[in-house]
């Protein structure tokens, strides 16, 4: 792997395993990639960092043959190359691990790894060689997986391993990982980084796409920064720092950690007692959960995604009925027998920023001003007339856009035309407008750019200081630790422990998220 044929092609003298020159790609009028230059040295981990919509995914899709560049050239091992399909990419030794796994849950590990390279009409031959290859790879890279297990029985970290093994089995010498730690606990992420290090030692080149600065600093050798479809900088990781990277990403100075004054908790706003609920298949997804939140404090709820946070938020916002237990919001008691709807909750000054803004928070094919009244369309936000007053709604939306700096300032633009950060600002502006007394926030900064993260965090803290009780659910530990006054850690629908915000660190939270309760209960 290390002998790279050195050719002078397109003026590049150095021995890069992968080189891009002036790659452009546009979709309609949107230029997703503008004159991208990228040089990757063999056997390194190269980070690509940028905000959502910076063009990272487009670039990777070009590399993997899912999109074709409009212009520009690509060299692999110095030789000019055209990649027209993912099959081309695979044959050139480029493998990709997608953010959302491309595995068939009902197939075994072996069947998944074989998929696409069955080796003939009968599976027998391919199976034997795949088992051998899996064993070899497992030993080399210290990532053994039982080939006969069903993928649906594996946890997320193991599934990711299967994806990596699948790429390696296809002969990948360049591995593209798209936001690989988004779904992992901190411990699993550490294990992943160990594997990546071993791969690097064995000569595999890794392209790591992420928006997390800490990961870039922790593991990469070099980093390229993208903004607005362009490469704005290349750095050696050892010669840069998170502040510089963040500024390059955003194009201006940013505060990575928002200042947070001491909390002044007041009356109890929400009391949850022995709350429980079942999934449609009868699994217990919330189990005997009890806690309380006071006005003027932020309770962070930490946990690996899918450990009961979603049903909890749905119950508290009135979208779902609890099956067991009860909760009392601002003096209003809710039990499984009560009629409860999101309307009743809104009327009681409970705001809800849902964790999935595309699924719940917005109607993407509605215009911005129509989204600005979603959930409030029966209130006075639609004007004083009996019918919907479009001008009134537009004015209302214009004012919110000004207040929250939502760009572009066009209330008639479809919600889908805004960037992730601006979409989220629309949701935040809407939910905060009526000054809620209790705010349920899920993943407020998922897929949101660094600049908007700073803004949204500031808004949440300001709201807390105005006396709102906030429940913050997030899988981003930095966010939980940065904002929460107390942190409740959940695992399998149960409370593992509740600790004070200042006592939390990635290690003890990570252990608790895995279900190991060692932090002292307060």
């Amino acid at each position: 792997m290390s002998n790279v044929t050195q050719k002078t092609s397109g003026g590049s003298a150095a021995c890069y395993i992968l080189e891009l020159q002036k790659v452009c790609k546009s979709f309609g009028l949107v230029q997703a990639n503008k004159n991208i230059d990228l040089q990757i040295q063999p056997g390194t981990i190269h980070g690509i960092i940028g905000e959502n919509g910076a063009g990272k995914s487009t670039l990777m899709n070009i590399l993997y043959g899912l999109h074709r560049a409009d212009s520009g050239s690509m060299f692999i091992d110095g030789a000019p190359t055209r990649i027209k399909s993912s099959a081309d990419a695979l044959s050139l030794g480029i493998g990709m691990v997608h953010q959302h796994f491309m595995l068939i849950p009902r197939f075994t590990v072996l069947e998944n790894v074989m998929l696409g390279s069955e080796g003939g009409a009968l599976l027998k031959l391919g199976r034997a060689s795949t088992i051998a290859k899996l064993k070899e790879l497992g030993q080399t890279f210290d990532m053994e997986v039982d080939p006969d297990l069903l993928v649906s029985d594996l946890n997320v970290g193991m599934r990711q391993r299967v994806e990596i093994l699948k790429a390696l089995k296809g002969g990948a010498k360049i591995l593209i990982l798209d936001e690989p730690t988004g779904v992992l606990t901190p411990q699993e992420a550490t294990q992943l980084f160990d594997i990546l290090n071993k791969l690097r030692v064995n000569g595999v080149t890794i392209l790591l796409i992420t928006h997390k600065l800490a990961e870039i600093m922790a593991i990469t050798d070099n980093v390229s920064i993208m903004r607005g479809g362009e490469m704005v900088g290349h750095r050696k990781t050892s010669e840069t720092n998170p502040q510089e990277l963040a500024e390059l990403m955003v194009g201006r100075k940013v505060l990575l950690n928002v200042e947070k004054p001491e909390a002044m908790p007041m009356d109890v706003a929400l009391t949850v007692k022995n709350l429980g609920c079942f999934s449609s298949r009868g699994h217990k997804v919330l189990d005997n959960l009890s806690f309380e939140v006071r006005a003027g404090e932020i309770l962070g709820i930490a946990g690996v995604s899918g450990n009961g946070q979603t049903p909890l938020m749905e119950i508290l916002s009135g979208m779902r009925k609890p099956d067991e237990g009860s909760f009392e919001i601002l003096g209003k008691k809710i039990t499984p027998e009560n009629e409860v709807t999101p309307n009743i909750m809104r009327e009681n000054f409970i705001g809800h920023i849902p964790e999935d803004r595309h699924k719940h928070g917005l109607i993407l094919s509605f215009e911005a001003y129509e989204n600005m009244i979603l959930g409030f369309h029966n209130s006075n936000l639609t004007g004083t007339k009996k019918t919907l007053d479009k001008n009134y709604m537009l004015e209302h939306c214009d004012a919110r856009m000004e207040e929250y700096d939502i760009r572009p300032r066009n209330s008639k633009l479809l919600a889908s035309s805004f960037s992730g950060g601006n979409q989220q600002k629309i949701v935040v502006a809407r939910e905060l407008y009526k000054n809620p007394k209790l705010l349920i926030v899920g993943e407020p900064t998922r897929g949101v750019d660094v600049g908007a993260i700073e803004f949204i965090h500031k808004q949440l803290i300001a709201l807390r200081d105005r006396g709102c009780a906030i429940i913050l659910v997030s899988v981003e530990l930095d966010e939980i630790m940065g904002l929460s006054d107390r942190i409740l850690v959940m695992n399998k629908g149960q409370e593992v422990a509740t600790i004070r915000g200042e006592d939390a660190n990635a290690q003890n939270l990570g252990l608790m998220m895995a279900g190991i309760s060692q932090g002292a209960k307060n």
Partner: protein
Amino acid sequence: MSVRKPLPRWADLILLPLINLCAAFFVCGVVVWIIGENPWVALMVMIKGAFVYPGSLGYTLYYTTNFIFTGLAVATAFHANLFNIGGEGQAYVGSLGILLATALFAPYLPSIFVILLCIVCSALMGAAWALIPGYLQAKRGSHVVITTIMFNFLASALMVWLLAGPLIQIGQQSPQSDLIPESAHLPSAETFFGWFGLDIVSSPLNLSFILALIALFVFWMLIWKTRLGYEIRAVGKNQDAANYAGINVSRTIIITMTISGAFAGLLAINEVMGVQHRAILNFTAGYGFTGIAVALMGRNHPIGIFFASLLFGALFQGGAELDFEFKSITRDMVLLIQGMIILFSGALAYMFNPALSRILTRVWKGGKQDD
């Protein structure tokens, strides 16, 4: 995950339907040419037959009236992402509302009230016929496409039984109801213009055309100006978000279906009160199904629906004229032309979308470089 810029509104609403229409006419023209007629002459005959010959415009607008009602029915449901294929059945049973209202009120009330009550009752019957599929969709998850189709058959069977049995005109062999009392007749266009001293050629066109125009306006108000319309569109675009917003999704689905059925039920006004003055077998004649194409072509917008209805009205009327004028062009040929239009503007409505989008993008880019 290719990103395609959506077409601008004017292109989506006007240009694309026009292109679809031209494509349909082109294919029909080829067929006409193959059977040995001159496509251009045929087209001229159609246009004259729909708009120019005496009385032809009246016929065209009479068909248009029917298509507006069924088009609105389909479009209302579309806004909630429901596919109401049951316009046919809903319109059919709508006639029962008129028969009921005339039987109950005609002896006691003046004409204007009888007519208004008939309108209300036909809408209510249509609504009731759509309510059950709506309820089943909302509460039981039975797909509304399947149930509305089944309700078409139910309506058909019910009407055959009623018109051949309990409701049959005494002393008649053919399955049709008694004439409705004269106080429930809608004035024809001829009568209407006669009031103002204008003399026009007789045609089935009647005052229900005005009702159709009012319905278009009501539809526009409902969908874009009311809270209910907002809820309907929210449910149609994103049920999860609608639920998050506190909109009762199943209730909205049921309400949407009843409104949809009410629009379809109004078709009976045109046929029963305006033209036949009785309920006859199969008076819906496929208008309900053509309404689907009308809504698709009209992009679920009242203005679009009006013009699409006018187009299909012209096709029905002009097509019949073709049948008269040419020996080799038969009634089936006319059906083929209608079928082509439905195919291109309904089923293949977005076939030219990518190409058009590409061309427009290129034009804009070129324009920008000129600046």
